[in-house]
């Protein structure tokens, strides 16, 4: 265990809190396993050692957003700790922390209040302990950078000195806590580097790929080339001749629905990675490919587009769309499609697990250690409480690493071999066996008045649903997919209908950064741009007119509650004033009014609300005489509510510009005869440095609204802004992604 820094599970188990992870519990005897009675531990997220060290638990996974650092900074700020004395410990999977599923851009909004309470509670108790010690009023004692200071006498005591006394005090009621004013913050929004930055720059950060256990074997697993295929036979004779190969074992196929189960396959286990990969190459495997072997993604995309031309299940209905169309001065309609996408995080799925004495300990690059506990427990037939999941750094996640099938593989193989096993997915395994971002066919129709403004609007969307992960018969979209830029369009149009047609899945479908917003935003904002050009209007002015006056709109989809990214519409209403504000900001900052489009140069615009955040993008493209696209500038205006780590917020939107560029321009998974055609970065293309926006300018609104999402909402408006810019530059309207498949000149 030389390279994995962990907190022992027994230390965590010492905490004797009641049920409910988010409640400030009673004190526990010790923080560390040494049963040190002098430590102070007023929350599951926070402990203070007698030596003054402050330990803050990061219960969310770090995959690049900075939340592992930002939430502890909030605790440290409310506590007024000295950041240099703070140690951030990554939590193991444990329900006492509340949800650890680092997904949905919700780490800050769901936990920032809890972190503030944890810090303020500890600070209050330390101040009270100091007041007792000095026999002065608590109001005269104030925390200051790791110590309590008596303001009148200038007496000082370190947090560590006061920890034991503080631990004996009653926990103050939440309502009595005083929180810092924004002006007093030391760490929040002060661009303090994330805790792993130096390790990363020195090559010391431990990712799942770097995790080790003593005596472990490394496994490479051959999966069916077609989703749902079953192992017919295999011949491992040549494999076993490879030096370093120790064993070849079968992993049983999943039972539908596939959920996060191991897919099943043939595993080559070896002393080291190279031997496992070499052994894999020599393996001869025959598969019964099953019904998905006839799947052809190009043909299927046509089917989705055709299905979107047919009436579907109504998921939003206001006014009377049909009579609106009948009385319209003009009708405009268009179909859009998007391909399957792979997450392709730079670190492929990797985890090490040991099954021993009916328990599993694993180290995994996972967004969701609690799902690891459940999935692994089911895979090896134990209780999830007997699965200890240590979370490493993640080399990118984007949704892929919420699904711990690869951790289950490691646990299954460890149980079979009696040794710790590390499973390493090759890039080919990753690209060919992903939980793909869904392919979608969409149809939009607008009935326009004499000025080219829509009075009736129909948006049909057909795509295999993420719901197929949990119900293999599912054919219709989940509420969360509908509430992503589809049944929550905030346009001021009297007649409005959204419909969903059925679609089956033929590969595993999963959520990828920004999820269904990606294809809905592409169709929606491309179509809006088309309507603006048709009306001879400026696309930004036209969009503002479509949004109507600034107001909060209550969404009332048909037959369901509006999903609203799991938040109430009272706390997070759909607010067109905020959307208008980011649009006006991006127009002003980008110099939109003075833009010059045409002859290979073009500007495009799109604005989208997702993850409760409002984002507007203006993209400038150059298309050269060979049709090659470069992006000299991208402007992104963002209202994400209050922020807690301004630089990391900017970084997420800078990253979204690149992620969105990949989706717009180049990325595509295609499937023939059920087999994914791409395998590595030569044919699954993602944006490289010269293809990414040369200058991304993020304009962050200084918002006092509740903190909203940051990791994902930058992505959806980027692809339509690029497509719209390309139209401005070339007159070519690209309705099918990726753009590289359309000849632009």
């Amino acid at each position, binding site marked *: 265990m030389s390279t994995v820094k962990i907190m022992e599970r027994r230390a965590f188990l010492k905490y004797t809190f009641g049920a409910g992870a988010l409640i400030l519990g009673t004190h526990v005897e010790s923080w560390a396993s040494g049963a040190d009675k002098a430590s102070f531990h007023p929350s599951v997220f926070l402990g203070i050692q007698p030596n003054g060290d402050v330990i803050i638990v990061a219960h969310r996974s770090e995959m690049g957003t900075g939340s592992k650092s930002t939430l502890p900074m909030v605790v440290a700020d409310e506590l007024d700790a000295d950041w240099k004395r703070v140690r951030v410990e990554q939590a193991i999977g444990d329900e006492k922390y509340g949800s650890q599923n680092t997904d949905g851009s919700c780490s800050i909004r769901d936990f920032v209040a809890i972190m503030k309470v944890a810090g303020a509670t500890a600070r209050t108790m330390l101040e009270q302990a100091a007041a007792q010690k000095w026999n002065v009023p608590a109001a005269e004692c104030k925390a200051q950078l790791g110590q309590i200071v008596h303001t009148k006498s200038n007496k000082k005591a370190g947090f560590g000195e006061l920890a034991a006394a503080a631990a004996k005090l009653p926990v103050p009621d939440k309502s009595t806590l005083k929180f810092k004013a924004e002006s007093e913050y030391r760490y929040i929004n002060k661009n303090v580097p994330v805790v792993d930055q130096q390790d990363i720059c020195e090559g010391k950060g431990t990712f799942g790929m770097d995790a080790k256990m003593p005596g472990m074997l490394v496994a490479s697993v051959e999966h069916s080339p077609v989703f749902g295929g079953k192992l017919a036979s295999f011949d491992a004779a040549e494999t076993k001749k490879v030096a370093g190969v120790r064993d070849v074992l079968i992993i049983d196929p999943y039972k539908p629905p596939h959920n996060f189960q191991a897919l099943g396959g043939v595993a080559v286990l070896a002393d080291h990675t190279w031997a496992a990969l070499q052994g894999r190459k020599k393996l001869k495997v025959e598969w019964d490919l099953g019904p998905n072997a006839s799947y052809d993604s190009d043909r299927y995309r046509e089917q989705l587009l055709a299905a979107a031309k047919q009436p579907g299940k109504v998921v939003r209905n206001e006014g009377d769309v049909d009579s609106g169309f009948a009385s319209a001065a003009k009708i405009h309609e268009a179909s859009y499609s998007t391909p399957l996408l792979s997450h392709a995080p*730079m670190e492929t799925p990797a985890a090490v697990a040991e099954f021993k004495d009916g328990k599993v300990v694993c180290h995994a690059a996972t967004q969701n250690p609690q799902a690891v506990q459940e999935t692994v427990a089911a895979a090896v037939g134990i209780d999830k409480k007997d699965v200890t999941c240590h979370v490493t750094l993640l080399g990118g996640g984007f949704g892929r690493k919420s699904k711990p099938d690869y951790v289950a593989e490691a646990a299954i193989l460890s149980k079979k071999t009696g040794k710790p096993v590390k499973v390493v997915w090759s890039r080919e395994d990753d690209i060919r066996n992903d939980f793909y971002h869904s392919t979608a066919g969409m149809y939009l129709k607008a009935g326009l008045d004499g000025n080219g403004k829509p009075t009736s609007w129909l948006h049909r969307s057909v795509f295999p649903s993420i719901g197929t992960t949990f119900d293999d018969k599912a054919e219709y979209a989940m509420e969360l997919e509908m509430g992503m830029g589809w049944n929550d369009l905030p346009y001021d149009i009297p007649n409005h209908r959204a419909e969903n047609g059925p679609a089956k899945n033929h590969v595993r479908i999963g959520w990828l950064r920004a999820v269904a917003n990606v294809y809905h935003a592409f169709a929606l904002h491309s179509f809006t741009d088309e309507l603006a050009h048709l009306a001879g209007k400026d696309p930004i002015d036209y969009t503002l007119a479509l949004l109507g006056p600034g107001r909060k709109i209550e969404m009332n989809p048909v037959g369901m509650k509006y999903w609203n990214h799991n938040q109430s519409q009272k706390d997070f209403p759909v607010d067109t004033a905020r959307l208008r504000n980011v649009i006006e900001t991006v127009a002003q900052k980008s110099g939109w009014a003075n833009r010059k489009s045409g002859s290979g140069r073009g500007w495009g615009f799109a604005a989208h609300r997702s993850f409760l955040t409002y984002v507007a993008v203006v993209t400038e493209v150059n298309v050269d005489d060979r049709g090659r696209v470069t992006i000299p500038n991208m402007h992104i205006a963002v209202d994400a509510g209050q922020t807690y780590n301004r630089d990391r917020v900017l970084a997420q939107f800078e990253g979204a*510009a690149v992620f969105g560029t990949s989706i717009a321009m180049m990325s595509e998974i295609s499937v023939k005869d059920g087999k994914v055609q791409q395998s590595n970065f030569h044919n699954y293309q*993602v944006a490289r*440095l010269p293809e990414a926006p040369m200058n991304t300018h993020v304009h962050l609104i200084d918002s006092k609204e509740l903190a909203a999402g940051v990791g994902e909402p930058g992505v959806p408006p980027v692809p339509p802004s690029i497509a719209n810019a390309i139209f401005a530059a070339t007159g070519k309207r690209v309705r099918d992604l990726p753009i590289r498949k359309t000849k632009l000149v």
Partner: protein
Amino acid sequence: MVQLKVNGVTRKFEGDPEMPLLWYLRDMLEMTGTKYGCGMGLCGACTVHVDGKAVRSCQTSMASAAGKSVVTIEGLKGQHPVQKAWMAASVPQCGYCQSGQIMQAVALLKDRPKPTDKEIDEHMQGNICRCGTYNRIRSAIKSAAGVKA
């Protein structure tokens, strides 16, 4: 047997001479700063220096590294101006590709102490960052080189 220097230390390797340097560094020497990303020389995550040149360690067999001097991210010891520029610009997001990015950038500045944007494009395009830190990579390189951003 293959003999080579890694970060100044002489090492001997008796295994498969076709084993890529990447897996030797990671699995034999337990120097995991050099990352696996594609195994085909397509992403740059495994970039190290061999005799001062940036190479993809996934495409460099142990046989071909014989007698050579290898420097990995660990060999920069956190003191290189490029590493300092990376930290000052808070380049990393997830961080997985950054060892390779840094090694590639260090090699660039050795050849071209004052690189132009075009030279940065050409030299860095083999290193993929899926988080999309390219703007900051570019500005950190310029800052390390002392050229105007």
